[in-house]
């Protein structure tokens, strides 16, 4: 029998037993589809969490004023002012050797405007090292250098979202935007960073720290109403640095043993790790659910195949009685199972792909197609389909035709 005839026969046989074919196929389709969707979801979630925290910059500590444990009603961290500009100078002095850069930041949300448009965004005043700590470069123009960063120039580096909102498709460099009515010249546009833990990273305007104090705060204050980013020389120094900074500030603030800290030091990397761990757990859970559904799909396929063994064994008996050789029977069943498994497998891949994409869109995850898992799922479901399709054929081909014809259970 040529291969074309064999395929034609296989398709006809599958068509003849529509219900069986459909049920078997459903097992394969949903088994594979579920595995792919689950694993894609888990990995997508992990990838997006990682991306969010990578955008923070690693190796950074965040120092802010206020008590370590502030009661909810009295306001959030930093509500009680305690960090002074003198504290910042002391940190910058190099006394703590593991500190590389110190970037005081002050932020507020306010209205920014171009000739064309208005946009409510976050405005941050900081110095040039901030860009180094955040590892953030300009896609157009430039970020601050040491001079401009320490100046009172009315210049602004803007995020891509602000650029799009205020300047649409034109080049923002050299154009003027107004913050609280004050004109600023755009000198740089930052590369896109996407979503961060506090929302859209790119929805921001950066101006020099001193300019911020003058124009936004209206004058110099003793206390720093904001946060200080501290970057460390090397990774793995977080614990020691936190201890040293704490000691320095307690000393400067004249706190004695019983007093609580009047400042906070956060380690975003630690938080990121916790987030990563929890998404990893979710991903593992999803993978287990997926494996179980693949198993159930496989068992469904087996059931249907085994139920049809009696009928198929008789069919094989008839075929052998009219001259089919064992190899003919095996080929027929192999091709039949292959057609079934591969059509079901492809549908399963399509279903998994679609579901993964939908989930990624719905949850704002990164779309991620787990090739390896898809391969494994395809292999397992296909293997079960082919294995249990071949099973009656392999068994019946060993029998004398008359035994196969009389087969009952």
């Amino acid at each position: 029998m040529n291969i074309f005839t064999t395929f034609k026969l296989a398709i006809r046989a599958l068509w003849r037993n529509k219900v069986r074919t459909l049920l078997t196929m459903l097992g394969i389709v949903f088994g594979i589809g579920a595995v792919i969707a689950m694993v894609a979801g888990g990995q997508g979630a992990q990838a997006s969490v990682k991306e969010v925290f990578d955008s923070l910059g690693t190796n950074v500590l965040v120092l802010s004023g206020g008590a370590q444990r502030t009661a909810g009603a009295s306001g959030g961290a930093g509500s009680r002012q305690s960090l002074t500009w003198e504290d910042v100078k002391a940190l910058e002095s190099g006394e703590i050797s593991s500190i590389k850069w110190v970037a005081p930041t002050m932020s507020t949300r306010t209205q920014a405007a171009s000739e064309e448009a208005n946009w409510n965004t976050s405005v941050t005043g900081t110095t040039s090292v901030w860009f180094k700590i955040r590892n953030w470069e300009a896609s157009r123009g430039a970020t601050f250098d040491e001079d401009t960063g320490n100046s009172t120039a009315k210049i602004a580096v803007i995020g891509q979202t602000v650029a799009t909102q205020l300047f649409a498709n034109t080049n923002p460099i050299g154009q003027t935007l107004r913050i609280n009515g004050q004109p600023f010249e755009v000198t740089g546009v930052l590369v896109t960073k996407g979503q961060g833990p506090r929302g859209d990273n790119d929805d921001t305007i950066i101006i020099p720290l001193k300019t911020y104090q003058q124009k936004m705060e209206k004058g110099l204050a003793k206390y720093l109403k904001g946060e200080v980013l501290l970057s460390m020389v090397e990774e793995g120094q977080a614990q020691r640095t936190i201890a040293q900074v704490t000691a320095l500030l307690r000393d400067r603030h004249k706190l004695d043993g019983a007093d609580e800290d009047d400042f906070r030091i956060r380690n975003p990397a630690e938080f990121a790790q916790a987030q990563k761990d929890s998404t990893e757990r979710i991903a593992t859970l999803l993978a287990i659910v997926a494996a179980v559904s693949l198993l159930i799909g496989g068992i469904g396929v087996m059931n249907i195949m085994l139920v049809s063994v009696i009928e198929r064994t008789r069919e094989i008996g008839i075929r052998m009685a009219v001259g089919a050789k064992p190899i003919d029977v095996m080929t027929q069943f192999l091709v039949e199972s292959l057609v079934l498994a591969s059509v079901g497998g492809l549908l399963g891949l399509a279903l998994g792909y679609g579901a993964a994409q939908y989930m990624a869109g719905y949850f704002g995850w990164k779309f991620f197609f787990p090739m390896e898992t898809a391969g494994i799922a395809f292999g397992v479901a296909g293997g079960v389909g082919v294995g249990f399709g071949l099973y009656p054929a392999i068994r019946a081909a060993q029998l004398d035709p008359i035994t196969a014809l009389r087969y009952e259970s």
Partner: protein
Amino acid sequence: MPPTLIEMRGIQRTYVMGDNLVHALRGVDLDIDAGSSIAIMGTSGSGKSTMMNIMGCLDQPTKGTYKINGKNVSGMSKSELANIRGRMIGFVFQSFNLLSRTSALENVEMPLLYQGVSSRDRHKRAMAALAAVGLQDREDHHSSQLSGGQQQRVAIARALVGDAPIIMADEPTGALDTRTSYEVMGILQGLVAKGKTLIIVTHEADIAAYASRVITLRDGLIVEDRQQTPIDAAAALAKVTAEREVADLALAEKNKRAEKAS
């Protein structure tokens, strides 16, 4: 002297049923000449089907030698046996054994599939075989859409489509009424007239009467072997048909009279 087509020597067939041995055949010797028609008779359980299955290479003897067309079957591989079944033998089962949910045409084409016959020839030959059993207009019908007699005729068409020299039939009329039995026997006798060898299992004497030789089995042994002049199934069918027409006429006449009287 026609050549010997089937040669059985000391054939035994023993089934193991738990701790018991069932001796279905206890040593059968039999030669069958090419072109003859032979009926195998015997009571239920005497071993007819067992013997037929061995002759048809569907089953293997426990002991003894079986030669078909001069070739010893014992020791043949499964595919060699399949080859013999496909090319030498057309088998008709008591229970038809058609593939379900499959058209008559596809059922009849099936043996040709395993002989590598091209799709066009398969179709042509299967249609011819269906025509030979008077089912040319039922090619698309599935088994469930055919009467018992029609299913058996499809099975006969399947047995003769490969043009095998031997037709074996195990109780081919067992599930059919008298009239349909004559029809089926007429078709089988027609095959003998064309030079085929017919081996038929039956427990009905009036079916055995169509064969030129009758063998009787009892408890797995041949107890009688006689030659006879076969009667003509076509004539018997004609007689039955005529009788029925007479009966129909009589009935019609009676109805007419009853109508007049009222």
